[in-house]
């Protein structure tokens, strides 16, 4: 049975105001089943207030082999971090 079921990625919002975060994946035959399975597998200990599911095949992922060209050029661009500014005292949440 299971070999025919596609893989789904599960995103759960743990509290109102927070963003959905990736919780894990599971198998399901359709979207409704994926939602119910996610509810039973990932939120039975009161972990969430909202669930998104998406079939894994619709997620386009970066290739780890491309990490050099994708991510390393940003490593020496420290001036892109806002660490060179003097923050006024009035600004509290930075």
């Amino acid at each position, binding site marked *: *049975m299971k070999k025919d079921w596609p893989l789904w990625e599960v995103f759960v919002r743990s509290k109102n105001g927070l963003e959905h975060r990736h919780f894990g994946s599971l198998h*399901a*035959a359709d979207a409704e089943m994926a939602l*119910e399975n996610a509810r*039973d597998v990932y939120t*039975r200990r009161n972990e969430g207030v909202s669930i998104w599911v998406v079939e894994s095949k619709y997620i386009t992922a970066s290739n780890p082999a491309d990490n050099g060209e994708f991510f390393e050029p940003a490593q020496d661009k420290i001036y892109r971090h806002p660490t060179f500014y003097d923050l006024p005292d009035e600004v509290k949440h930075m």
Partner: protein
Amino acid sequence: MKDQDLYNYILGIADNSLILGQRLGELCGHGPNLETDIALTNIALDLFGQTRSYYQYAAKIAGDGRTEDDIAMLRNERDYKNVLLVEQPNTHFGHVIARQFLFDVYHLQLMNALQHSEDEMLVAIARKGVKEVSYHKRFSGDWLKRLGDGTDESKQKIQEAIDHFWPYTDELFDMSDSDKKMAEQGIGVDLTALKDEYYKQISEVLEEATLTIPDNPYSKRGGKQGIHTEHMGYILTELQYMQRTYPNMTW
């Protein structure tokens, strides 16, 4: 016992949840797959949670020193008043879903009606239970449609399961003497009033699942009087093993 009828009435509801929960619990580690295994044992835990509230209340009413565990674990077969439907074996996944759905529709009707009881404790238990049972019905109903409107094999198996359990549904609406007295006092639910709506709801889902509504006038009953099928003894043997082998053991 002063409130013997209320005590009997509570046990009549609680025993259905206990025995169905025990049946579902058998699937722990044996579900068709990880996701369904967790879903079905979640439902079992919901049912056990509900039975605890009922048995705690029943123990208080009995007032003879027995605890919720004594009532749940230490009665003899004839003293369990669950309907025959919930004690039927799991057999295959289609049977698990069909049995569950045929019970869930009734159970949700009962929880909805029980919220209007004159008894505050039963109202409180029903208010908590109604959300759990709504989800049970959604789960089993979705699966029923999925299997009915699925492959030729799934359709044939779920139809066979529905046909198999159909004769057990009529007993859900039987009323014992205590049931009748409690309904008259506004504490219990008049089950006969739920019957038409039950078969209407079931028929709608069966149609949506492209399944045939059974046309079988024969019915099987007895559980509500304590006359059980041959399966009940085996369930109780497993359920009661720890308390019978190690009396008074606790977690």
